[in-house]
Every structure is written in structure tokens, then in C-alpha cells.
């Protein structure tokens, strides 16, 4: 009986990915911490922290879009595909690695960096001469409660969906995966958008473009919830499943 899932093997896989990438990850964490420390040093309070989160998002998306880049190298692809683990295990570990490990790595390093920057700013502000040069008010104190987690769940779901698409794109396209995935997503997005316009208009509903969103005010509330949570979840699961299928069919 074949075992598609083995916790031991998945842990070994995760360990092997970590062992091969740890130096690169450490450098990435230090760079992120450094950038965030700079922003922490020049910004006035923790209020800007969530704004700076976009750096993490961009990095995370780039990581997602290059996940299977190693398959472009023939020897590496052969080594990866013949590693004794099922395609399902490899998919699950990759998803977990991207969505949990890298998410935490980036979050922690950026927070630590930003905190360090703020700490440095406070220390500098104590010195009157330096305070005058940089124009610090000297009254600045740590205010961690200013860090906002509003809409964190929604954003996380949206982020996970985009990551899943880029993850699949990195396996499907391999070379220039991010660009090709984004282009495909744009084409697909426009197609859906125009389809929406046609369907909604022909059904006699009012169609309105408002800011970033297409609002469907005349539709029942449950449809809004469906669009907001179910659709991204289904899309995410779809891309994860497609990643598994594609990985199973990948040749080297």
C-alpha cells in the first residue's frame, strides 16, 4: 500500500529545504530587518509599521513566484524529483514553507528591524545635539498598541490566494514565471471583469466601479460574503491542487 502522506517524510523534506536555503534566508531576513530599521529610524511612530508591511508582501510574492525556479536547472530538478517523497508531500511542504515559514520569517525580521530602528531613534533623540540636527521632537515613546491588525484576516486570505497563483505559475512557467503569471492573471482578470459587466448589465443590476472594487449593492448580502471569503478560498485550493497535479507531471 502506497503512502501518499508521511509526517516523517514531510519533516525530512522541510528540513532539507531549510538546510539548503538557510544561508539565503538569513541574508534575506537581515536585509529586511535593515530596511525596516531604516524606516523605523526615520518614521515618527509605529503607526507606519502596517504601511511598511507592503515590503514583506512584495518579497513574499517574489518568493512565491520563484519557488520552483530550481526546476529550471536540470541537475537540481532531477535531484528534487527523485527525492523519495510523494508529489503530494512535496506540494504540502512547499505550501507550508511559503505560507508559514517565510511569512513568519519576514514578519519577525521586519518587526525586529523596525523595533530596532525606533529604539535607535529614541536613543538618538536623547542627545540634544543630534535631536536638533534631525529635528526629532524628543517626546517620542514606543507605542506598540498603534500597530494595527484591522482587516488582517481578509488581507491574509487575499495574500494566500495571490501566493497560491504565483506558486503554480512558478511551476507552470518556470522561466520568467512572475512576469508570465502576472500577465496571465491580468488577461484573466480583464476577461472576468468584462464578463461581469456583461452578466450584471444584462441581468438588469446596477453596475458601479468604486475605487478598487466592483460593488454589487443590489445583490443579496450572502453573495458579498461568498465573493469575499469563499471565492478566494476556492481559488487558493484550486491553485494548490493544480500545483500538485503539475508537480506530479513534471519531467526533467
Amino acid at each position, binding site marked *: 500500500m502506497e503512502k501518499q502522506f*508521511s509526517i516523517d*517524510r514531510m519533516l525530512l523534506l522541510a528540513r532539507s529545504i531549510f*538546510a539548503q536555503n538557510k544561508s539565503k534566508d538569513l541574508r534575506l531576513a537581515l536585509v529586511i530587518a535593515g530596511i525596516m530599521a531604516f524606516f523605523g529610524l526615520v518614521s515618527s511612530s509605529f503607526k507606519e509599521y502596517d504601511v511598511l508591511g507592503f515590503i514583506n508582501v512584495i518579497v513574499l510574492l517574489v518568493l512565491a513566484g520563484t519557488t520552483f525556479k530550481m526546476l529550471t536547472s536540470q541537475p537540481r530538478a532531477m535531484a528534487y524529483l*527523485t527525492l*523519495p517523497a*510523494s508529489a503530494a508531500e512535496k506540494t504540502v511542504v512547499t505550501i507550508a514553507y511559503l505560507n508559514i515559514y517565510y511569512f513568519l520569517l519576514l514578519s519577525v525580521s521586519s518587526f525586529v528591524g523596525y523595533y530596532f530602528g525606533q529604539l535607535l531613534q529614541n536613543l538618538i533623540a536623547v542627545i540634544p545635539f543630534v535631536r536638533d540636527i534631525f529635528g526629532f521632537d524628543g517626546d517620542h515613546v514606543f507605542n506598540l498598541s498603534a500597530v494595527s491588525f484591522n482587516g488582517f484576516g481578509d488581507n491574509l486570505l487575499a495574500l494566500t490566494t495571490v501566493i497560491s497563483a504565483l506558486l503554480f505559475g512558478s511551476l507552470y512557467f518556470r522561466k520568467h514565471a512572475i512576469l508570465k503569471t502576472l500577465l496571465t492573471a491580468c488577461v484573466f482578470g480583464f476577461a472576468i471583469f468584462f464578463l461581469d459587466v456583461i452578466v450584471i448589465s444584462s441581468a438588469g443590476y446596477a453596475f458601479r466601479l468604486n475605487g478598487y472594487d466592483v460593488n454589487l449593492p443590489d445583490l443579496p448580502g450572502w453573495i458579498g460574503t461568498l465573493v469575499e471569503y469563499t471565492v478566494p478560498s476556492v481559488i487558493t485550493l484550486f491553485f494548490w491542487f493544480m500545483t500538485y497535479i503539475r508537480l*506530479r507531471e513534471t*519531467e526533467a
Partner: protein
Amino acid sequence: MIQLKDVTFGYTKIAPVFKDLNLELAGGHIYGLLGKNGVGKTTLMKIIAGLRFAHSGTAEIFGEPSYKRSPEMLQDLYFVGEEMYAPALTIRQYVDTFAPFYPNFSREQMDAYLEQFELTNCTQRISAMSHGQKKKVIISFALATNVKVLLMDEPTNGLDIPSKSMFRKVMAMAADETRLFIISTHQVRDLHSLIDSIILLDGGEILIAEPNEVITDKLLFKVVDSTEGMENLLYAEDTLRGIYTVSENVNHEECKLDIELLFNAAISNKKKIKELFRNY
């Protein structure tokens, strides 16, 4: 152990690399996979390893289709490619990371093979090593996994002369009645003493897939002064030492297999060779 049934494969639809290829390989042998450049030696090994999928027909290993790449199958299979992936890990870290995937991996054997290859610096990163050293590490690891099927693509490429004899030595140490090794090579003289069976590929088909003794039972390898009056001559090569000949071994005379001569004879006399050996 390995069975290929009517395998057809090609990188383009117009020119298939293999058409209706059949092959059956048993354990306890070191097969030499021979063929001209581009004939599909690496592709054949990739199909066996499940890295390439046959367009039609089946490729089975341990009785299950190789394209499935099940963990159970992969635990008993290792592919040493001509170009190898060498991560930025030390030998020790490499072993710690990848050895647990192979249930029969032996650290003692790994150390013994590394010692044979005179690779004692386990703190150096594999990615920073020379091509030959990388190859030695990967070969040592592959042998220490104790997998049942070991595929090696041009393993002696990039190895210096002493390392080639070391390679033969470690291969001989690792071979047993349960394991099956397939070595694809152009450098037949490097592995002459090691290979006990030959698989000869040409024009998308297998011309020969037989143990050495079967080949020498059917073909006679002889050095003569003149080929005049020689019957059943398949191939002759004039050299300073005399004329190297391959002819049909009608009287089942004892002789020593010369792989290079066999290769040239088979390529130049495909029809006759196919008649003599089982037609794959």
C-alpha cells in the same frame, strides 16, 4: 526488476527517440549502456527513473510504473546524472540532510567510500569543490544509500586517472546479487573490467542486451594477421598490433570481450547482430 514494454518516446512527434522499445533487466548485474551521442542513453535512464514519461508503452520498476515516482520506489532508486546538483552544504550536512530519505543508507559505507576517494575534508562545502570531487561525493552517497537500482550517467567523466580506478574499486565493493547498476558511458575502457552485461542502443532500438558471456558465446573477438579466408567476419580493424576482428563464434571458442570492437561491429553490422541476438 526493470521492465520496459513497447516504450515509445520522443522530444518531438516527428522524430521519436525510441519506438516500441522492450527491455528486461534483472538484479545482480552491472549493465553498461552504450550508444552513440544523442542515441538516447540518458533519456532511457530517465524513463527508467520516472523523470521522463513514455508516450506509449510502460516502464516499470519493481513492478510499478516508474512515472508514478512513489516514495517506496524512489527509496530504492538513485540517479547519478552527468551534471550533479551540489548544494552549499558540507559532506556531513549533506549526509545529515538527505541520508534519512534512504532507509538502507550506511554512514560507515559512506565514510569508507569517501576514504577510498581520498575525500577526508568533510567541512568543505560541496558546491565549492571541483567537478571531480563533487562527483566522488555524489557517487559515494549514491552507493551508500544501498538502493536496489543505481543509474549512473557518464560517472567517470571528470574523474582523473587514479580516481577512475578508485571508482572501479568502490563499485566492486558495492555490487552484490540484489543490486542492479546501469552505467551509461562512452569511455568503455574505463569500465571494461566492471561491466558484466551490455545494453547497446542504436537508431531508437536495442541491438544487444545480454551478459558478457552470452556475447562472447555468439561473437568471437580475435587478433589475426590476415582476414583472408575468415568466415562469418563481422568487423575488422587494422592496428599496429594486428587486425582486430569480430566474427560469428560458430564453434563457441573462448575469447575475451572487447567492448569497443563489439560496439563498432554492432553499428556497422546492425542486421546481423540483430539476427544473432534477441531482437528487442
